[in-house]
């Protein structure tokens, strides 16, 4: 055979063998997955560079990876962070199936590097980079790994949701701004995301799936199971990713360790608790800032979650912790409901608390404050003042003024229930104090000014054109309280002609009735 023909033949043979090995590889990969030969799965749709490094470098990957870890550490010590994203990318590319590597790199960016910047916008960049590393790449190559779901959930729940980082409100605001186009003013908009009709809606749904890697169908299921949640807030995303991790584990039980799933469940419960505390986003109508209120619709589901968590927990020590946490949650829930003027629900959960924890005090500073010894009103008042026996004049006055101020603020923002709740609480505290000091000889010395005077003072401060609420808020408040409109030259006391409705209490009051 001529040399040229032989070469061509060999080339054809090489090409045929290469194609054949490619087909064989598919079969091997399928068998590998079906027979559960390894926990890791072959890389799918990986970039050529990543596929090359994971195969061609072989054992040298470890050496290169070590070098990169050392460089990353040295640079971090020297305060040079601009290479970190690149180095993390290389390190994870070299060890794409090692979840701890992804988890560490993401955690390092979101927690350690972020706080090294004084500007909150810089910090947010790093929190996002950590989040993206897990969401966009880590989970792509490790779709069943509970640790990565848990870490991603943890960034939303702890870094953004909690207040340990003093930039947490900035993070929440930035995330809310990003989620607002998808979820609108109410925080839920699944139907449009699942079945978009207009071009704009289709573009949003596509962005939601492709950039944020979230499936609106699953999000809706999560909302139905654990919500209703405000999806503009980080807690909803924390629950989503933890729930998705659980779902993946359920579908592929052989690929995960069941003991790893407890962390995911805890992420859900803890995020729900956070959502209870501040899971309702309200946009301040006057300065457009974001306010975070308790989401009291979650109380029942969260209580069920605690019961479930208690039943699932095998460790007796942990069981006690869960019960303790449930009791704390119920105490807070009762107070929040009371504050929101949902008195009937507050009474229901107060009774539930008494039934389930009859022998444990419900006030931190009073070991004798068993549920059977206190009424709901006494408990709510004590929550504000710290101690039911506390009759300090200044603290009481300060508490009443604070609650009245808060009540008027809520009225200005249109939340009539909370207005009524705070007003009620202020009245209760004032009444309780008055009764307690009534028997004292020196009542005049320790007594409070009339409630009407306190109320007038607070209202005057809020309606002060120079130091009070913004103009728009003052105008709303004046309208709600039926006060004359503000004039440029006047700084008159409004209280002389005050009359108002107290929603929820059925009162129509004049000035004197504010003292109630």
């Amino acid at each position, binding site marked *: 055979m001529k040399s040229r023909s032989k070469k061509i033949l060999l080339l054809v043979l090489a090409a045929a063998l290469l194609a054949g090995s490619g087909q064989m590889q598919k079969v091997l990969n399928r068998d590998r997955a079906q027979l559960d030969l390894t926990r890791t799965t072959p890389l799918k749709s990986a970039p050529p560079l990543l596929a090359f490094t994971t195969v061609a470098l072989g054992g040298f990957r470890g050496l290169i990876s070590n070098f990169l870890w050392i460089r990353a550490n040295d640079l971090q010590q020297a*305060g*040079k962070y*601009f290479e970190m*994203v*690149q180095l993390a990318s290389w390190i994870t590319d070299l060890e794409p199936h090692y979840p701890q590597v992804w988890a560490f790199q993401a955690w390092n960016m979101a927690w350690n590097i972020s706080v090294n910047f004084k500007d909150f916008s810089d910090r947010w960049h790093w929190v996002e980079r950590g989040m993206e590393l897990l969401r966009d790449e880590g989970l792509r190559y490790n779709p069943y790994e509970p640790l990565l779901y848990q870490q991603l959930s943890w960034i939303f729940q702890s870094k953004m949701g909690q207040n340990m980082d003093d930039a947490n409100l900035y993070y929440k605001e930035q995330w809310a701004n990003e989620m607002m186009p998808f979820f609108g003013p109410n925080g839920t908009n699944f139907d449009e995301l699942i079945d978009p009709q207009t071009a704009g809606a289709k573009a949003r749904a596509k962005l939601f799936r492709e950039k944020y890697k979230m499936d609106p169908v699953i999000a809706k299921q999560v909302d139905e199971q654990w919500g209703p949640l405000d999806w503009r807030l980080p807690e909803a995303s924390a629950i989503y990713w933890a729930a998705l991790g659980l779902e993946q584990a359920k579908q592929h039980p052989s690929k995960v360790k069941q003991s790893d799933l407890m962390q995911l469940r805890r992420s859900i419960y803890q995020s729900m608790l956070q959502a209870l505390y501040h899971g309702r986003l309200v946009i301040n109508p006057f300065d457009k800032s974001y306010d975070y209120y308790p989401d009291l619709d979650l109380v029942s589901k969260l209580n069920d979650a605690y019961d479930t968590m208690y039943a699932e927990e095998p460790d007796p020590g942990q069981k006690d912790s869960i019960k303790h946490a449930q009791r704390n949650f119920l105490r807070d829930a009762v107070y929040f409901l009371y504050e929101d003027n949902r008195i009937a629900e507050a009474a229901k959960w107060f009774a539930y608390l008494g039934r389930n924890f009859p022998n444990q005090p419900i006030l931190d500073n009073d070991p004798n404050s068993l549920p059977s010894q206190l009424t709901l009103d006494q408990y709510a008042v004590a929550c504000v003042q710290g101690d039911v026996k506390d009759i300090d004049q200044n603290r009481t006055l300060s508490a009443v003024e604070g609650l009245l101020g808060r009540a008027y603020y809520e009225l200005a923002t249109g939340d009539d229930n909370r207005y009524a709740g705070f007003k009620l609480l202020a009245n209760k505290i004032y009444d309780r104090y008055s009764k307690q000091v009534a028997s004292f000889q020196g009542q005049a010395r320790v007594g409070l000014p009339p409630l009407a005077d306190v109320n007038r003072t607070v209202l005057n401060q809020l309606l002060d054109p120079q130091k009070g609420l913004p103009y728009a808020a003052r105008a709303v408040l004046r309208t709600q309280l039926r006060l004359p409109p503000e004039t440029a030259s006047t700084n008159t006391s409004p209280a002389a002609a005050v009359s108002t409705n107290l929603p929820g209490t059925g009162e129509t009051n004049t000035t004197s009735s504010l003292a109630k």
Partner: protein
Amino acid sequence: MQKILAITWLTWKAAFRFRLFLVVAVLLLAAVVGLPLVLKDDGTARGFTQILITYTLSVITALLGLSTLWLSCGTLARDIEECQIQVVATKPVARWQIWLGKWLGIVSLNATLLVLSGACVYGLLQWRATRLPAAEQEILRTQVLVARGLAQPPDYNAEIDARTEQLLQERLKQTQISGADLALARQQIREQVKAYFQLVPPQYTREWQINLGFAKNFLRGKPLQLRVKFNTAQIGLSGTFVGQWRVGEPGTANAWYSGPMSLSPNAYHEFEIPADLFDSQGVLTIDFLNANNTTLLFPIADGMAVLYPEGGFTLNFARGLGILFCWMALLAAIGLASASFLSFPVATFFSLALLVVVFSSGTLSDAVANGTITGVNEETGTAGHFIADFVLIPAFQGIVAVVNVVKNFSPIDSLSTGRAISWGELGAAFGQIVLLFGGVISAIGISLFARRELATAQGNQ
């Protein structure tokens, strides 16, 4: 000189004949153009520019370094092995002229490639900068694409030493201390004295005064930047601490107040301060209020500094390339020196081994610090001993000292952080790297080449 230039020209021709110039030029340009497409940055224009400067210049250094070693080893060793050198050596040209001519040829080749690739990097940086929003451009122009000088407060070494000796003498009057204990006692007292200059207790204010020296004459009307770093023994859940700054002339209204600032420990923080806050003597006074419940420590060495604009990026970039050029000149000397007495593959291997030693200087430094090559028992904290330590440790000390002189010039680091590379620094790099080390290595190489029996290499073919 004509003879040297003739050899230089021959080296250039060889580089073109081997396609080396073309290949390296294409690789360098591909790296400069291609890197921005694949780099992952932190999402800020500043971060992207910093990583771009670091990686493009690093790739240029690595490519040029390897090609320099390859060419310098090859051009001499292969000439000897292939007997072409016999044609040259029989001409009226001295051996040292041949050696120097080749070195000059390689160095000038490097200079050309460095200028070519450096110009591309510079153009790329400027082009990208002009496409950014004005605010981002401003950040780049003030923090990265600039040459910033550094002014620091005094190191108080004299005061610390004097006070340490005074306290030590008082201690010695009370207690008898000698030998190793004396050194330890002195060190402990020194740390205590140093603490006075470094610590800011809770709710206390600390003042620094930084003399801007001659720079005050051209800093009027220009904002400056403070670079601060502190350590602390306690780190809370938030990981940050709150502090407030006042910068300006004491007792006057010419001051800037920062308001509460959330800062993390163990990290450098840079922030801008308004212009003209220093006094007529050029002294800038900085006060810091520690508003936390824990003591903060600002290290004397790098806890407090002022960064000020000293010059433009263009010249700074050129000076940085100048230092890279010095490194290349040294590598060329190393390659030629090893090719002067070794065959091409062995010379290449030898030169690369030298580079490995340079990159391993951290390991060597550890061995020198421990006083042994056997390492330290982590449980007992004691170092082992090995008979070879008597020879190796002094040798390592020498190597580390030499390597550190070369490595201490870090132009890429300075350029990526907007730090000024002074003419003095460039001059020192040229003097130490090219003239001193390059000169010594060249002298050894020329000496070996001059004594080599060139015709004996023929038997190897």
